[in-house]
């Protein structure tokens, strides 16, 4: 995906600046092909080579090694590649991964699309609340969510099973819900991926000219037929784009299936990568080779996604008049819809976090509500551990440094891509958005190979570098969406008034982009603090953030400690977001995500 063909960037909203929309005279937007690339472009290009191209190449280099990185007898070898691609050992895992991804993506699109239609077209009661509930999971940690659902719906000790047994007088071995299954994993993934589909499709629905639908009703079609024959076909590009977007995410996801254990016949490729990298006897070349296998599929997904986004341009139907669509009054349907939204809100946010708090307050992981005795002993005990203090520090370093650096480099990328263009600009555009195609855990294996012999290895700095590279697309996307909306003559006026490029950037461009950059910073803060996929491969005992510490407790089977650390992590994220929202006044709603 390149930044310039992103879907659903609502015009005139995201930047939050009230600049006048102005027709661009012909010629303004075209390249300055004859001028050599600017110093800024060259610097950004070199940074991206190190942050993005380097690690990606090292994944392939690592796949062709015989031993773990840094070992003396390491040599070139096809073994790992043979094992992964030809031996058949991982075929089941691959098919399972792709199957889960396709099912998850399809269901996300169905649920997200229906939700978007109801929230943009139907007078659903409490619309604002449900909209908030639908984008809230984007700011929550999927890892914490999966952990909470493990506590809630594990087959034997899960809270739901334990308590419903005595409530309904069922035998001791009755299993009512089981999240440690394939449908369970897909269910938890859906909780976190439906919001993405919702964002894509609702943006398209909002941008659609309402008179297209009104024309259908003038021609005698009812609500249902209009939705089916006019709205749905118009939404096709957004639907296809969100399908591939979610499919790419679901292909590379590690943390949800890993937490839920998945006692089925296969484990997803991302989990296999993790096992090969960390579980004794570790086999990093196989991990890297598995990473390359995963990479081909996410790359194909991103390619298909890009193509569908490009097609979406043909369907853009922004009308000059900003008329809001007339809301449909479904007498019964709107209450049914509200009930569904309430259930989603409950399952994705309320129930998991209640469980997390409750489990943190019950010292011995007792899930039977009759026997629960609340106490802070468990929390205090975990709080006092020295590794928790270290993890807190690491999480805060990640949460402050990563978003700041990503936003700054992202601004540079956006400036080169949107304003300077040229051939180097096109290359930077591709490099900057490339990490979308590389699952976090795969990217981490490349970083490992790149930095294993440097002094920063196993420090929090390696993590910072890895996350900066991985989140570059998000940083660039926000900055360029903001920059596109800033009329270029605002910058040119500064030049005409005698300001050099730097003064122009700091006095005009930067202040006008502030709202976009703040939204970007906040979202990246969330990403960086909750990150598990890469940190789990790259962090050593001293560089573990809270998320990895919690994961380690899950691995050891200490779910109560994991819940406490998960709660700490949630508190850090919540404090950060409240700070961004109310002190920095960052805007975080569906119009600027």
């Amino acid at each position: 995906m390149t930044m310039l063909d992103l879907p659903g960037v609502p015009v005139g909203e995201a930047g939050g600046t009230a600049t006048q929309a102005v027709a661009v005279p012909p010629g303004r937007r075209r390249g300055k092909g004859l001028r050599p690339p600017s110093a800024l472009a060259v610097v950004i290009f070199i940074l991206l080579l190190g942050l993005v191209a380097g690690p990606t190449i090292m994944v392939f280099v690592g796949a062709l090694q015989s031993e773990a990185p840094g070992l003396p007898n390491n040599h070139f070898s096809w073994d790992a590649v043979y094992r992964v691609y030809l031996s058949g050992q991982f075929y089941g895992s691959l098919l399972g991964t792709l199957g889960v991804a396709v099912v998850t993506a399809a269901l996300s699109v169905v649920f997200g699309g229906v939700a978007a239609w109801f929230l943009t077209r139907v007078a659903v009661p409490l619309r604002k609340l449900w909209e908030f509930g639908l984008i809230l999971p984007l700011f929550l940690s999927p890892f914490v969510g999966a952990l909470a659902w493990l506590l809630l719906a594990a087959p034997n000790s899960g809270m739901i099973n334990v308590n419903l047994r005595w409530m309904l007088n069922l035998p001791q071995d009755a299993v009512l819900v089981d999240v440690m299954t394939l449908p369970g994993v897909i269910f938890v993934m859906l909780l976190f991926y439906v919001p993405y589909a919702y964002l894509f499709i609702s943006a398209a629905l909002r941008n659609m000219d309402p008179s297209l639908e009104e024309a259908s009703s003038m021609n005698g079609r009812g609500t249902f037929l209009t939705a089916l024959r006019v709205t749905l076909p118009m939404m096709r590009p957004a639907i296809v784009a969100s399908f591939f977007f979610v499919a790419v995410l679901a292909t590379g996801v590690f943390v949800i299936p890993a937490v839920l254990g998945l006692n089925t016949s296969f484990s997803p490729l991302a989990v296999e990568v993790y096992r090969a990298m960390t579980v004794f006897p570790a086999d990093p070349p196989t991990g890297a080779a598995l990473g390359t296998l995963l990479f081909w599929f996410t790359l194909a997904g991103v390619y298909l996604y890009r193509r569908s986004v490009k097609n979406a341009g043909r369907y853009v139907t922004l009308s000059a008049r900003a008329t809001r669509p007339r809301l449909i009054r479904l007498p019964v349907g709107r209450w049914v819809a509200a009930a569904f939204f309430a259930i989603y809100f409950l399952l994705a946010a309320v129930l998991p976090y209640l469980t997390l708090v409750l489990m943190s307050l019950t010292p011995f992981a007792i899930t039977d509500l009759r026997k629960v005795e609340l106490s802070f002993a468990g929390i205090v005990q975990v709080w006092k551990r020295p590794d928790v203090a270290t993890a807190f520090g690491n999480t805060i370093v990640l949460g402050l440094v990563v978003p700041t650096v990503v936003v700054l480099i992202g601004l540079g990328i956006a400036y080169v891509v949107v304003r300077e263009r040229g051939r180097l600009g096109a290359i930077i555009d591709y490099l900057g958005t490339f990490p979308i195609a590389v699952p976090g855990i795969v990217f981490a294996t490349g970083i490992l190979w790149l930095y294993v012999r440097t002094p920063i290895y196993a420090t929090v700095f390696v993590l910072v570098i890895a996350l900066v590279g991985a989140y570059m697309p998000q940083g660039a996307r926000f900055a360029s969406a903001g920059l596109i909306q800033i009329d270029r003559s605002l910058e040119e006026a500064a030049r005409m008034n005698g300001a050099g490029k730097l003064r122009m950037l700091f006095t005009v461009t930067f202040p006008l982009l502030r709202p976009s950059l703040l939204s970007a910073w906040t979202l990246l803060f969330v990403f960086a603090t909750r990150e598990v996929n890469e940190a789990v491969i790259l962090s050593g005992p001293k560089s573990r953030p809270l998320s990895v510490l919690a994961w380690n407790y899950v691995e050891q089977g200490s779910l109560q400690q994991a819940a406490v650390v998960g709660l700490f992590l949630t508190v850090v994220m919540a404090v950060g977001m409240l700070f961004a929202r109310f002190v920095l006044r960052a805007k975080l709603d569906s119009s600027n995500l």
Partner: protein
Amino acid sequence: MSQTIANPPAPSVRQAQGASLSVENLRIKYGETEAVKGISFSIEPGEFLTLLGPSGCGKTTTLRCIAGLEPASGGTISIDGVPVAGPGRHVQPERRGINMVFQSYAVWPHMTVAKNVGYGLKGLSKSDAASRVEEVLELVGLAKFAKRYGTELSGGQQQRVALARAIVTRPKILLFDEPLSNLDAGLREQMRFELLQLQRAVGITSVYVTHDQTEAMSMSDRVVLMRDGVIEQLDVPREIYRRPASEFAATFIGRANLIRATLDASGTRATADGVAVVSEDRYDGEGDRVTAVFRSENVLLGAAAANLENRWSAAVTRVMFLGRNLDVTLALPTGSIRAEVPIDTPVVEGASVEVGVRARDVHFVAADD
């Protein structure tokens, strides 16, 4: 309009503070397409020159190239004889001593009016800068609004902020990129007048881009009429109106009647389909295929047409009442022509009428085809 108005004072007579500008053989290329194909013109200090033409003719590109916002791909641009763009040379826009009023005004929404205007003042003490800003805001009538933010102003007020910001730095040359095109018609007329007064008062060399011929005619010392990246005609407004250089120039500015005809040996008389057209000026172009151009307000009907050098008989096909005058469409054997005549002229649709044009109001240009 055919009456002669007093010539405006020549720019050299006015108090002039600006620089001279010369553009020589300027070419601007975007990839494969050439937007400006080798144009040359020069401007005296204090002169007001307008680049006029339909959209896509290269006028804005030329202006941006003078500003330094676009690189030239050929030719030179010199300010006061010093080249700022030329082979291997591109002076950054902030170092050219030029300022510009943008079509979108480009008033920075995150700064107050005073901050906007004072942005370009460098090397001045705070109090000096503040008094300069105040002085200029007074000049454009915005002194009360100094503390407001740009977005809290109306379009016309934003326009004045942009103007104040452009003159406060005392540039050597002031550029205008269609500054009035975003305003309502009434306001546009008022701003046109104010803008011109201000330019005359400050005396800055000005280059003005517009596609609006009324703006070009009423404000400029000279007009550069452009089409497809080349200069079609460069002259004072009245000459362009009275003696257009081509059919395009004739039809782009004002309403012109065209009669394609074949010139005879005299060079002042041409005929087509039995219609003879006589002019006072000899045609000195190539060939004998010419187009006779005359303005609709110079077409006289009925008794008024008697004794004129050009007299034809035509059928009245349509009469429209426009309030101030009548717009009459007439059928000649060569095609239809339009006449603007006083409302008391006795014309009836379908009737035949005597049509007359003075020889001095007819002008021959080369026929397109």
